[in-house]
């Protein structure tokens, strides 16, 4: 296995680790840091892929990722939680060990799912698809188990990261137009979420999702 592939696998493993770390993290602030780190690793991964395959457009992509996901979004989030004054612990719906066990099961499932596909892949990064699916599913799990708005959003963003990882490592990145479009969407989405946090707090005096269970069938 070439060195670059080994590096990419390392990055993938790191990302998986971070995903698990996020799943088990109770503190919002730490979640944001982990999220920033995830962005950084993603950017690094893009650089490695670009360097090893000679896909130059991935450098731009890496730059974009670093700017958006490792710096801007965490910064916005950080500002928000300071403005909103919510630094306390996040309560999970299911206790952390159970969540971790479910997470491991998900990893097994995603590896198995990716197996037939990876055997077809011609890229050097074929092992990473399983990890990408696992990241998506783990973020999904995180969103399900969090009862506060901010962690749920972080879960959402982490899911986006997983997708981005899938895009870069399995296909050397999407076409640039698409890539830009996605980035724009994520940014706008984040801005809107920011507005939302204020709206939610204004309406409910809290960012706890348990207040938002009014709309239902009696």
């Amino acid at each position: 296995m070439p060195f670059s592939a080994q590096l990419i696998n390392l990055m993938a493993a790191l990302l998986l680790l971070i995903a698990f770390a996020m799943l088990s993290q109770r503190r919002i602030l730490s979640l944001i840091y982990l999220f920033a780190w995830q962005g950084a690793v993603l950017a690094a991964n893009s650089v490695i892929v670009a360097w090893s395959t000679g896909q130059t457009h991935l450098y731009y992509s890496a730059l974009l990722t670093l700017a958006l996901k490792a710096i801007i979004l965490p910064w916005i989030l950080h500002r928000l939680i300071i403005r909103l004054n919510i630094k306390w612990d996040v309560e999970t719906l299911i206790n952390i060990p159970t969540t971790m066990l479910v997470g491991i099961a998900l990893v097994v499932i995603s590896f198995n799912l990716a197996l037939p596909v990876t055997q077809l892949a011609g890229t050097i990064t074929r092992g990473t698809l399983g990890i990408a699916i696992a990241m998506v599913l783990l973020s999904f799990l995180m969103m399900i188990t969090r009862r506060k708005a901010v962690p749920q959003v972080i879960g959402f963003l982490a899911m986006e990261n997983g997708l981005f990882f899938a895009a870069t490592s399995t296909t050397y990145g999407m076409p640039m137009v698409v890539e830009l479009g996605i980035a724009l969407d994520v940014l706008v989405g984040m801005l809107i979420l920011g507005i939302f946090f204020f709206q939610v707090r204004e309406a409910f005096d809290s960012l706890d999702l348990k207040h938002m269970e009014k709309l239902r069938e009696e």
Partner: protein
Amino acid sequence: MNEIAFVLGIPLFGGLVLAFRGGRPGAAMLNVLFSLLTFIAGALLTLRVVGEGALLAYNEMFFVDSFNVFLVALTAFVSFTTALFSRPYMMNEHHHGKLSARMLRLYHSMYQMFIFTMLLALLTNNMGILWVAMEAATLTTVLLVSLYRTPASVEAAWKYFILCGVGIAQALFGTILLYFAAEKVLGAGGTALLWTHLNAVKGELEPTVLSLAFVFLLVGYGTKVGLVPLHNWLPDAHAEGPTPMSAVLSGLLLNVALYAVVRSKVLVDGALGTRFASDLMMGFGLLSVVVAAFFLSRQKDVKRMFAYSSIEHMGLMTFAFGMGGPVATFAGLLHMTVHSLTKSAIFFTVGHAAQKTGTQMMDQIRGLADTNPTIGWGLMLGGMAILGMPPFGVFASEFLILTTAMRDQPWATPILLLALGVAFAAIFTRVQSMVFGETTAQRLPHPPALIPVFVHLALVLLLGLYIPPYLAAWYRQAAQLIG
């Protein structure tokens, strides 16, 4: 070609203009004007495509065939009529003090942007851009759902945002997988996500990857279509947002999302050569129809009820497209058209009815036929049309779907019919009690614009009795494309 630029450019420009001027008194009229221009551009584009056949433009970025051009025309038309309706509606809301000028600015700007995103999703040839536009459509509407800033509306918007965001993320994964498969055939770079290219080589795409991709795409776009069990955002968002928004969400956005699913299905079918995608779609469609029908009988909020009805109808269309074949696909397309027209007409009447009575709770809305016969009869006829009563067009498409199902999927027919019966009982009893009886309504400060309602219903009636040959030919072509 220029038509495409106009179709996309006008709403985009409109959105920008209204972002600055949207709160002024004339903004609503401006909104109508932009929508009208878009509609004219869309009509010209349609004429051109009908005349000259499929069209690739701007470096293959945009692709117009008979499938999407009819959706473009429909989208442009309904957005225009909705803008017409929204003018007095929003003025009344403003008058009642529910909305400030700032809110109106946001509303008008986002309305145009929303139209833009939908048209972009329809016109683009790039599956990636399609995704981007779909996501953008969510983003433009999410703040509109929480426009009233009530706790309920914020909650609805939050759910809308998170659920659709997560859903659409799955669609992105599906798109990546699609790209992953296409790249091996078409090579890396720009063309591998272009639908025309994908369609040309769909037989060579890797089946395993595509089936995996389709699952993600279906779950992703299916969330926006409102397929059960991914539908939970839909009733909340419809009920809590301003009514013109509900009208376009139900009438247009769901269609566009289904359009995305169908586009994906064409590729997957070509690659797999099995009924995998069809079976999935049929399963989801059937489940949606049945579950939505039972949901209907527990509703108290009028907009919420019609939101569930949208789920039911989207389920029916999904089922039809899943079934495939020229007749079912034709019926699916027809159903898209008539459902959009009817459902938006219903929301128009419902909006005014709710304004007149000051509530969306159906047990407090009574006797609309009496004080305002046009609203009342509009709602009554719209309700009948949406329930599939002939001679309205919804019946025509349901007839085709059901009769095809009897031939191809006989097992599904009794289930569908049972669900339609339950839905009928649920909706009709409520519509009747709203339209008839002693009245509770008051006068509105701004007279409602009900021409759109009757224009829509007249079109739907026409389609039930007579489908013009060129329209039929057009649907047939589209059905052929979809397969």
